[in-house]
C-alpha cells in the first residue's frame, strides 16, 4: 500500500487560513489501512479543527466525507454536485488522490492533509516500512526477493557495502541492512552462488529519472 502520515495540525491550519467552509475528504484505501486518512482520521481531524476555530472565535464550517478511492474518476465524481459549496477541500488521501481531485475540480483549492511517504507494509500495528520504489523494472528475481533499490540506503545492486555491521545499515543501527537480508535468504534457499552473479548497470529510465511515467494497456482500454 501507499503509506502516509498525518501532517502536523499547525501546518494544516496554516494552509486553511482564509477559508470558511471546508470539506475534509478521506479515502477508504491505503490511507485507511495506515491510519492516516480514513473515515476515523477524518472525524478526529474535523473535531480538532472545529475546536481550534471555535477557540479562536472564528466561524469556520468543517464537513466530513470519505470516498471509496480518490484515485478513480468514478468515486471522485461523487462530490461533483456538492464541491462548489466549499471554499477548500482538505484531502487526507495520498498525493495521488490530492492531485486527481485538483485536476478534476478546477475552481476549488485542494489541500493535502497528509505527507505521502512510500510504498510499504504494516510490520505491526503502528509500524509501517518501505518495500518498493516502483523502479519500473523489477529485479527481485536476482536478489532473493528482497529489494536493494528501496531498502539499501545506497541502492547497491551488488552490495553489501563496507558499512554493514551486525545486520544493520551504516546509516542507523535501527535500519536493517538489505544485503544482510538478501544473503540470509540466499543461504536459506541454498543459492549462495547467486551472490556472485554481477547485476549489470541498471536502466533507470523506467524510474523517476525517465520523467513522469504511464502504463497503457490497449487490450483493456475502453
Amino acid at each position: 500500500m501507499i503509506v502516509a502520515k498525518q501532517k502536523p495540525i499547525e501546518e494544516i491550519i496554516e494552509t486553511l487560513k482564509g477559508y470558511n467552509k471546508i470539506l475534509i475528504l478521506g479515502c477508504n484505501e491505503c490511507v485507511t489501512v495506515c491510519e492516516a486518512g480514513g473515515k476515523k482520521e477524518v472525524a478526529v481531524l474535523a473535531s480538532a479543527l472545529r475546536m481550534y476555530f471555535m477557540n479562536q472565535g472564528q466561524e469556520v464550517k468543517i464537513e466530513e466525507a470519505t470516498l471509496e478511492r480518490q484515485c478513480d474518476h468514478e468515486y471522485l465524481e461523487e462530490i461533483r454536485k456538492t464541491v462548489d459549496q466549499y471554499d477548500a477541500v482538505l484531502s487526507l488521501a495520498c498525493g495521488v488522490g490530492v492531485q486527481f481531485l485538483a485536476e478534476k475540480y478546477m475552481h476549488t483549492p485542494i489541500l493535502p492533509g497528509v505527507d505521502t511517504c512510500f510504498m510499504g507494509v504494516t510490520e505491526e500495528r503502528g509500524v509501517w516500512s518501505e518495500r518498493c520504489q516502483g523502479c519500473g523494472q523489477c529485479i527481485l528475481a536476482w536478489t532473493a526477493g528482497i529489494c536493494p533499490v528501496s531498502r539499501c540506503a545506497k541502492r547497491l545492486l551488488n552490495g553489501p557495502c563496507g558499512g554493514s555491521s551486525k545486520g544493520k545499515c551504516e546509516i542507523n543501527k535501527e535500519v536493517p541492512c538489505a544485503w544482510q537480508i538478501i544473503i540470509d535468504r540466499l543461504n536459506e534457499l541454498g543459492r549462495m552462488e547467486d551472490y556472485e552473479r554481477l547485476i549489470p548497470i541498471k536502466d533507470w529510465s523506467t524510474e523517476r529519472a525517465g520523467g513522469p511515467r504511464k502504463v497503457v494497456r490497449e487490450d483493456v482500454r475502453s
Partner: protein
Amino acid sequence: MNEEKTPSKLEKILRAGHLAVTSECGPPRGSEAGHITKKAEMIRNHVDAVNITDNQTSVTRLCSLAACIHLKMMGLEPVLQMVTRDRNRIAIQSDILGAASFDIFNILCLSGDHQSFGDNPKGQNVFDLDSMQLIQTVRHMRDEGKFLGGDSIERPPRMFVGAAANPFADPFEIRVPRLAKKIAAGVEFIQTQCIYNVEKFELWLKLARERGLTEKIFILAGVTPFKSVGMAKYMKNRVPGMDVPDELVKRMSGVAKEKQPEEGLQICVETIQRLKEQKGVRGFHIMAIEWEEKVPEIVERSGLYPRPNVN
C-alpha cells in the same frame, strides 16, 4: 599477472614483484592547494602513489580530481578516488576523461559513505552505479575504448583499476565472494580497510588464497596508526565497518598520554611487519589521517625504504 596494461607506476612496481607502498591525502575544506601539496611533499620519497580521497565521510572538500592534478604537477603518482554517491554515469565518465587528460593513471572505485554522515545530510544521493559497476565502467572505457553508450572514445583512459575491500564488515561469509565478484568486474588492485584485527584479516586472506584470488589481483593491506587511545576508541565504536580488538585499546590506554603516539606507531609497524610475511599481501596502504608527517617513519621502520625505482 605480468602483463602491464597502463603506464601506472603503481602497476609497474606491483608487477615487478615489489611490495608497494601507497598513502592517502585528504583534500582541504577550502581552495588553498598548499594544504595538499604540503602533505604530499612530506611523503613523496616514501610512497609509490598517493590516494586522494573523494569527499570522504560525505564532508564537502576540494575535489579529488583537482587535488590529483596538483600532485601530478609535483611529479607524484596520484590515485584518483571516485565515489558513485555524487555522480551519475555522465559525470563519472566525464571525470574519468578529465583525469585521463592529465595522465592520471590510477583510480579507486568506491560507492562512498552515505551522505547522512557529512555536512549535507539533507542532500540527494545519486548511486546511478555501484562500486562494482564503476569498476566495469572504467575497464570498459579503457579496454574497449568505448563509452557506456557505445560510442568510441578518442584517446581512451589508461588507468590501473582499484577498489576497496573491507574484510571486517558483515556478513563475513560473503567478504571473499565479494572480492571474487570485484575481480570478475575487472578490478586489478585492492586497498583494504584499516587492519587492526590481524587474525581476522589473515583468515580472510587465507580464504582468498584458497580460491586463487590472490593470484589474480594485488592486495595492499590498509593500516592507520592510532594517535591516542581516544582515537582507538572512536574507531572502535563510531566508525562503521571498523574492527578494533579490545587488546589494542587496552594496549593504548596502558601507556602514558605522551607516549601514546609512539605506541600507535609501534602497533602500526608491527602490523606491517607481520603482514609482510603473508602470501597474498602485495603492499601496504598507509592511511595516516591528519598525521602524514609520520608516514616516512612508518615506512622506514617497517623496512620498506627505499622505494624501488621502476622508471
